[in-house]
């Protein structure tokens, strides 16, 4: 049935280009859904959609005998279907009005969510069917097929990042469609060359012509077809409903889609935490939205200092009232309000750091005059990641301001729970403190959430940072104030002086702000102007400074344990034990206390487990019914464990390393691009190398040797990478990139060998299991991506790496009996 001519080789190029477009599509969908919904829903939707890979394994298991003789047609049709479904399924899914926030109220929402899952899993199903069927057909070439798959995917990760820098996300969709059509054209040519379409030269040319035409037509489709339909509940959608509001420009990068909104009729008035006593209002502003939310504002400044007086009515202006500030460093400057605040207070030297170059460019070009040339004159502006800048910088400052960047709405709904942030970790605070002049301040502002969460978590983080710096007077080095909606924490390397505390009290009383903590504070000073049921901020701060701090954190209903570089989830406040209590209050507003981001991750995992179970169990039932001879139970179980373990471990290590390298490469996009591409490409090369073991029938040797190198390298990296990074962090970026690639290469190379060795062996002894384990591996990748985040939240990324190494060891154990040499 599976007759392969002698000179017939697998369609390498089309497999590579198909994988390239599939991976690019996956990353693009994450971006698109982060824009139209929120990040964690993007995560949920895409994870589930990827189960299309698993489902194809089931499909191939069930219909293998029908599909295999029709390989050329099925392979080509699946590529074409991927192309069309990548575009159409996304467009249809945009029409499904799913609203995440209503999920607890509206029984129709889960159905809509399910419809989105099904639609988006189709493209991945087609890709996996095309590649999976190739594995079955070319059983002697599994290593090279897998290599083409990985090398293509590696290139896809670089390609999509490059595309997102140059075109808008919705336009990127067209390029991916075109790429899929290119894969189809290559497939036609390869199938023809492999004798599969030899007699049909005319047909070949017709098909090439049609595909080329389709590829080009997608670029002339009306823009409105692919336009993003943002959730009506996102900040940008709400803003655009207001009379006069319009998007004047959009700028894309992998960091986010920036939409600039002007409204000459009803201007923006962004002034988080403005005093109740303020009489001044913000001047005209332009809104800058990142991914349709998280607004920052560019404020009009015509040189008249008085128009900025409102900035002195924010809690963040406290340090300017405690002593003379000559040098300020602003981290996460965004639209520049904090730069203006420094200007208002006549600071001589202002340094401003903003990760997103496009925002800096906006202020320097389009809004140069509007913003009063704030980024042009006497302000040093750096387009860098905040911590990377602080570590590399040699200057010291009177004040370092960490700006409130996340949006209030998203923060209050717990939407950032899954976002790692290296800005608010213990180590980060230590690095900031190291850059302060004697007597200088580190100031961090946050939104107020009730019951208190992030403000207390930040306070606990500051205590740990000072403790790690071997400070003996921690209680003397902290000040915490709050307005109605924001809190500002000040940390010093030395004790606050009596004069400073006097100024502090004057500042808060004039503005009706509350002091939550200062050295020597009495309880009756708390909770005076912005009254809450009890002085929770004060009592929380006191408990955190006291002897029973750990006890307090353990019993507190939210997770307020300090975030570290190994567990960089500052925004996750969820605790499992509180869930029953919150759910019991579902109908009475209690759901608002749920940190939804975390719970959605857990739900995603449950759904994935459930679907994976069905996907995996279904073919087994089929085997039983059809009494397929070699479905030996022992092989089934061991092969299942082997492919599940290597699938999980691969993704665990990949994700953990992306996180580890963010600290080294500083820029998250750079880290994702370098680490992801390196892992995929070197695994691809490893897969090529695995042919040697397969040809010599040294399956067992190949697996054991690879796992040995993986475990030794992994453990070595876990032990020494942190220290090595500390010494090497000052190297030029290009050298750091090269070094990262060199470090990842051996690990990825060996990781890439295990799948093809296992598959090759299985195709020799139990060929009917090949599509099944292909599905198992697909499910493992999905489960791995979700599990790794959950594990990292609870135990840290180092644990994730060790867990992965343990899984690789388990793979060796489960290879006994079927993956033997000879």
């Amino acid at each position, binding site marked *: 049935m599976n007759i392969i001519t002698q000179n017939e080789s697998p369609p390498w190029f089309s497999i590579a280009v198909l994988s390239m477009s599939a991976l690019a599509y996956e990353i693009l969908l994450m971006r698109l859904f982060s824009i139209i919904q929120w990040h964690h829903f993007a995560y949920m939707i895409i994870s589930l959609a990827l189960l299309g890979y698993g489902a194809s394994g089931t499909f191939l298991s069930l219909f293998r005998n029908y599909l295999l003789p029709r390989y050329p047609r099925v392979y080509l049709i699946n590529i074409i279907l991927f192309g069309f479904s990548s575009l159409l399924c996304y467009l249809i899914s945009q029409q499904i009005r799913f*609203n995440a*926030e*209503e999920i*607890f*109220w509206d*029984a129709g929402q889960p*159905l809509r969510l399910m*419809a989105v899952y099904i639609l988006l899993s189709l493209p991945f199903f087609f890709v996996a069917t095309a590649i999976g069927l190739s594995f079955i057909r070319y059983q002697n070439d599994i290593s090279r097929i897998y290599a083409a798959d990985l090398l293509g995917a590696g290139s896809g990760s670089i390609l999509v990042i490059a595309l997102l820098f140059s075109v808008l996300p919705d336009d990127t969709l067209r390029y991916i469609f075109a790429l899929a059509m290119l894969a189809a054209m290559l497939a036609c040519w390869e199938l023809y060359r492999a004798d599969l379409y030899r007699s049909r030269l005319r047909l070949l040319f017709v098909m090439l012509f049609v595909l080329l035409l389709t590829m080009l037509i997608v670029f002339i489709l009306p823009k409105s077809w692919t336009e993003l339909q943002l*959730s*009506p*509940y*996102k900040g940008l*959608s*709400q803003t655009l*409903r*207001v*009379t006069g509001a319009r998007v004047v420009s959009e700028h894309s990068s992998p960091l986010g889609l920036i939409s600039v909104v002007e409204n000459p*009729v*009803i201007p923006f*008035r*962004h*002034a*988080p*935490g*403005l005093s*109740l006593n*303020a009489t*001044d*209002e913000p001047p005209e502003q332009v809104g800058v939205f990142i991914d349709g939310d998280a607004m920052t504002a560019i404020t009009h400044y015509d040189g008249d200092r008085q128009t900025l007086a409102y900035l002195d009515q924010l809690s963040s202006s406290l340090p300017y009232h405690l002593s003379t500030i000559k040098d300020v460093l602003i981290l996460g400057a965004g639209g520049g309000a904090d730069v203006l605040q420094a200007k208002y207070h006549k600071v001589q030297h202002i340094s401003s750091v903003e990760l997103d170059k496009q925002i800096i460019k906006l202020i320097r070009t389009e809004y140069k005059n509007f913003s009063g040339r704030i980024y042009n004159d006497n302000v040093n502006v750096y387009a860098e990641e905040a911590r990377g800048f602080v570590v590399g910088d040699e200057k010291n400052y009177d004040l370092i301001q960490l700006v409130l960047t996340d949006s*209030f*709405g998203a923060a*209050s*709904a717990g939407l950032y729970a899954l976002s790692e942030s290296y800005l608010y970790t213990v180590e980060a605070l230590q690095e900031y403190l190291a850059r302060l002049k004697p007597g200088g301040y580190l100031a961090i502002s946050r939104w107020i*959430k*009730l*019951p208190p969460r992030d403000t207390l978590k930040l306070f606990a983080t500051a205590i740990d940072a000072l403790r790690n710096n071997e400070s003996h007077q921690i209680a003397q080095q902290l000040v915490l104030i709050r307005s*109605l*909606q924001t809190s500002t924490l000040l940390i010093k390397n030395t004790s606050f002086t009596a004069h400073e505390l006097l100024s502090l009290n004057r500042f808060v009383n004039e503005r*009706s702000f509350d002091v939550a903590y200062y050295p020597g504070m009495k309880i009756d000073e708390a909770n*005076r*102007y*912005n*009254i*809450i*049921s009890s002085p929770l901020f004060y*009592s929380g701060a006191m*408990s955190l400074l006291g002897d029973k701090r750990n006890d*307090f954190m353990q*019993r507190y*209903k*939210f997770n307020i344990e300090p975030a570290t570089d190994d567990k960089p989830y500052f925004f996750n406040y969820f605790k499992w034990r509180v869930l029953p*209590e*919150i759910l019991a*209050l579902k*109908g*009475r*507003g*209690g759901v*608002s*206390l749920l940190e939804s981001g975390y719970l959605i991750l857990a739900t995603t995992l449950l759904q994935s487990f459930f679907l994976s179970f069905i996907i995996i169990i279904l073919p087994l039932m089929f085997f039983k019914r059809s009494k397929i001879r070699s479905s030996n139970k022992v092989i089934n179980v061991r092969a299942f464990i082997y492919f599940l373990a290597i699938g999980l471990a691969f993704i665990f290590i990949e994700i953990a390393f992306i996180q580890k390298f963010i600290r080294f490469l500083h820029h998250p996009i750079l880290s994702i691009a370098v680490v992801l591409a390196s892992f995929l490409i070197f695994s691809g090369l490893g897969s090529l190398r695995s042919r040697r073991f397969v040809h010599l029938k040294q399956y067992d040797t190949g697996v054991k040797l690879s796992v040995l190198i993986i475990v030794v390298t992994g453990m070595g990296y876990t032990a020494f990478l942190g220290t090595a990074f500390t010494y090497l962090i000052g190297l030029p970026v290009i050298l750091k990139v090269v070094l990262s690639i060199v470090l990842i290469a051996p690990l990825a190379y060996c990781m890439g060998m295990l799948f093809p060795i296992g598959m090759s062996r299985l195709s020799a002894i139990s060929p009917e299991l090949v599509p099944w384990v292909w599905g198992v591996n697909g499910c493992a990748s999905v489960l791995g991506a979700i599990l790794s985040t959950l594990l990292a939240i609870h135990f840290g990324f180092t644990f994730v790496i060790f867990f992965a190494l343990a899984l690789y060891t388990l793979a060796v154990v489960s290879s006994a009996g079927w993956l033997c040499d000879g």
Partner: protein
Amino acid sequence: MLLATGLCLTGLMTASASLAETDYTKSREKLIRSIEQDVRETASFIGTGKLDERVMQTMLKVPRHEFVPGLLRGLAYKNQPLPIGHGQTISQPYIVALMSSLLSVKPTDRALEIGTGSGYQAAILAELAGQVFTIEIIDELAKQASFVLDKQGYKNIKKRIGDGYYGWQAHAPFDVIVVTAAAGHIPPPLIRQLKPGGRMVIPVGSRFMVQQLVLVEKDNNGKVSTRQILPVKFVPLTGKHD
């Protein structure tokens, strides 16, 4: 399968829409009992076990189903927020009752509402206060709410489409103010337009899940303070430790 389920749901909702007026009255009575139950359970946070009797009578009277989109009428008397289009919601009845009660509205009061939305809160205020002034920034919502309020025969509500940030200076000062959306700060003009002794309420949180209410009070000397009320039974935070 999916389509069939969707159609069934739609059918159910449409059937509910044709409920008789007597059914609506019964539903309102049931809703009031649900609100009273919630109030009792959250008494320690909102500072009372019973809301203003006038407010409860008003809630019993105002037909909430008139203020929600046709398809959702069957859910109008559930104690939950509902979408009204344009990215906005009609608040949970318990929150509306609590807000209205916190304002301690007198029949002679002048009330200002920033964010008319569905018009439901304006209708409640119109029953409680002498004169209501309401401003909505989204044209379509303002027109829809105006239509419903006129249909319900409210004569003491003045409506305007526009920017609520500056309040309504021509009719200031106000005894009570309700602000339905204030993400970053309370607009200084609104504080200025609040009478000494006046009260302002602002719900804070996401649209479908109000997390807390902020009650702004201006004393007779013009001094302003806020009180945050967490209308959710969720304490103590640290068990016995507190």
